[in-house]
């Protein structure tokens, strides 16, 4: 079975932006629901951080970027990788640890990479991606390439030195970095209130003289609009931009998390604002979406997931004899 991008290009092109945003949110949701199921079935192991509830952020943001832009993401990056064009088949194979995975099974859930699509990975050290994004943007600037480097991170990263150092360098050197903070209110189990003296994240970013925007991260159109605006400024050479996307994860931090730190009532309240649910309701109300059309999009997403699972199941393991490969580019073991 070949890894294929299941999304028919023609259909995508014909679809309106709102419908495509919905379709992509559904793709992420169905992919991750299947991941949770497969984790229980022990097909996927290690850490598995699900994005369920936050899909509007990656979806709205990636649709505001150009195909050639750099993306640096976190360990909760399945959706970002998928929407940047990494085939769901190879994402799933990666989570299975198969050689056909997008990182040859060496990375797993937290380290999805696609060099050709300028997707510089799942970085699993909180804040670790920010300096990398600064450097990617620096390289583009020094080579005269007009390109935006989008860097996703959570609000937890804003307590790290890497955030401050990265923001400062990007602002000091006026580099084309688009800082996209997905504020889901909890750094693992520590609420924003309990970890930051300044809980207004835009104020923190603004202290580096970086322009900021705040958007409702549960509203895919709002995200798309904010990021579009920010990306345009960055691309124009105005230096970095900071966008806070206020969102919420519906599931635990990882599959190991018993969720002792937040109230079920709070979770349920946020679920009322579920990005897929609300957005599809809005489209239906506006007459842009029928229930049949929604079910068709959902079935398309489910089919893509089914194909990805079959692909991952059928894929082979990298031979243990290859263990020492991919340590250095020359393949020689150091």
């Amino acid at each position: 079975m070949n890894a294929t991008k299941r999304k028919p290009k023609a259909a995508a092109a014909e679809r309106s932006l709102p419908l495509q945003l919905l379709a992509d949110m559904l793709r992420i949701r169905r992919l991750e629901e299947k991941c949770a199921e497969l984790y229980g079935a022990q097909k996927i192991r290690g850490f598995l951080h699900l994005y369920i509830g936050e899909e509007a952020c990656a979806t709205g943001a990636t649709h505001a970027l150009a195909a050639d832009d750099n993306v640096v993401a976190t360990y909760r990056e399945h959706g970002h990788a998928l929407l940047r064009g990494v085939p769901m088949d190879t994402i799933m194979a990666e989570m299975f640890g198969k050689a056909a995975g997008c990182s040859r099974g060496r990375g797993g859930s937290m380290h999805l990479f696609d060099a050709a699509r300028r997707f510089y990975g799942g970085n699993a050290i909180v804040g670790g991606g920010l300096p990398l994004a600064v450097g990617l943007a620096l390289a583009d600037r020094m080579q005269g390439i007009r390109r935006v480097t989008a860097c996703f991170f959570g609000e937890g990263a804003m307590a790290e030195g890497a955030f401050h150092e990265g923001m400062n360098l990007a602002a000091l050197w006026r580099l084309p970095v688009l800082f996209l903070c997905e504020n889901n209110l909890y750094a693992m189990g520590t609420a924003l209130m309990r970890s930051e003296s300044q809980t207004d994240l835009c104020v923190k970013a603004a202290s580096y003289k970086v322009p900021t925007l705040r958007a409702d991260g549960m509203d895919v159109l709002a995200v798309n609009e904010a990021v579009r605006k920010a990306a345009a400024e960055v691309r124009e050479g105005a230096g970095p931009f900071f966008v806070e996307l206020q969102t919420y994860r519906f599931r635990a931090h990882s599959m190991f998390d018993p969720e002792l730190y937040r109230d079920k009532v709070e979770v349920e309240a946020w679920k009322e604002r579920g990005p897929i649910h609300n957005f599809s309701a809005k489209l239906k109300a506006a007459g842009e979406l029928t229930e049949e059309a929604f079910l068709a999009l959902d079935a398309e997403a489910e089919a893509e997931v089914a194909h990805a699972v079959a692909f991952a199941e059928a894929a082979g393991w990298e031979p243990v004899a290859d263990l020492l490969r991919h340590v250095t580019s020359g393949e020689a073991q150091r």
Partner: protein
Amino acid sequence: MRISYREAMRLALREALESDPRVFLMGEDVGRYGGTYAVSKGFYDEFGPERIRDTPLSELGFVGAGIGAALGGMRPVVEIMTVNFSLLALDQIVNSAALLHHMSGGQVSVPLVIRMATGAGRQLAAQHSHSLENWYAHIPGLRVLAPATIVDARGMLAPALADPDPVVIFEHAQLYNMEDELPDDWSCDIERAAIRRPGSQASIIAYGGSVPKALDAADALARDGIDVEVVDLRVLRPLDVATIAESVGRTHRAVVVDEGWRSGSLAAEVVARIVEHCFYELDAPPARVCSEEVPIPYAKHMEDAALPQVPKIVAAAREVLNV
């Protein structure tokens, strides 16, 4: 041409900047100040602020930026003023530079060179006197170099920049003023250890700032009729076991000199390799001359006592030779 180690480094950097537009130098005070050790003095005016890039005191940030720039197609040379401050950047060096190639299944490479001064001996006290080469030599994905001669100072940068993977270069601060003749052919590899002085009775194995001390010890021993070999490791990762084993296999005795602390040191690794590879050639237990297990003190006499010194190396050689 007789030049200093500092001048050799300067020549290498200038050549790199002149020959490849992707190369740029970044670090604290590399520009207007001219480099803490004056290696890049004058470059700011010559190559401009874009390519001789002063950074804020943000080791984690600018090392990470160097890694990102390498990912983005540049050939950055990042100068961390000293190994002591590299601890602030350790996350980026270990978790990003060394791992990205592997985590991406071989898709991306990080062609980055990180230079840093290392070592003690100038009464800079505990926080500015570290020798932590072994920390970096522990990490798969990095290449770690320790130029100890004028030729290596001149010659190692070019192959390091040509390496598609991250290379960490340790320049011992005590070596910058060292002078020697630079031969016409100063090209060198970054693969193999070098025998700096052939000998027959024991192998003294050292690197970086300990190499001149090992050579002085060999001179002292020679005056007493004891003929020892001096091996300069040069490449701390991957270790050139073949050269080490060949030397010790011939001399049957080894003294390893390392300015790092003994416990968990590179010297420990070298001794382990010797035992693994030439156990049946050993005629005496290998000896180590390392720093004493104490933070490096400020007072001169105490600092001297804490570090490997020529008399200690001589004594260790005599001990393994039982003479």
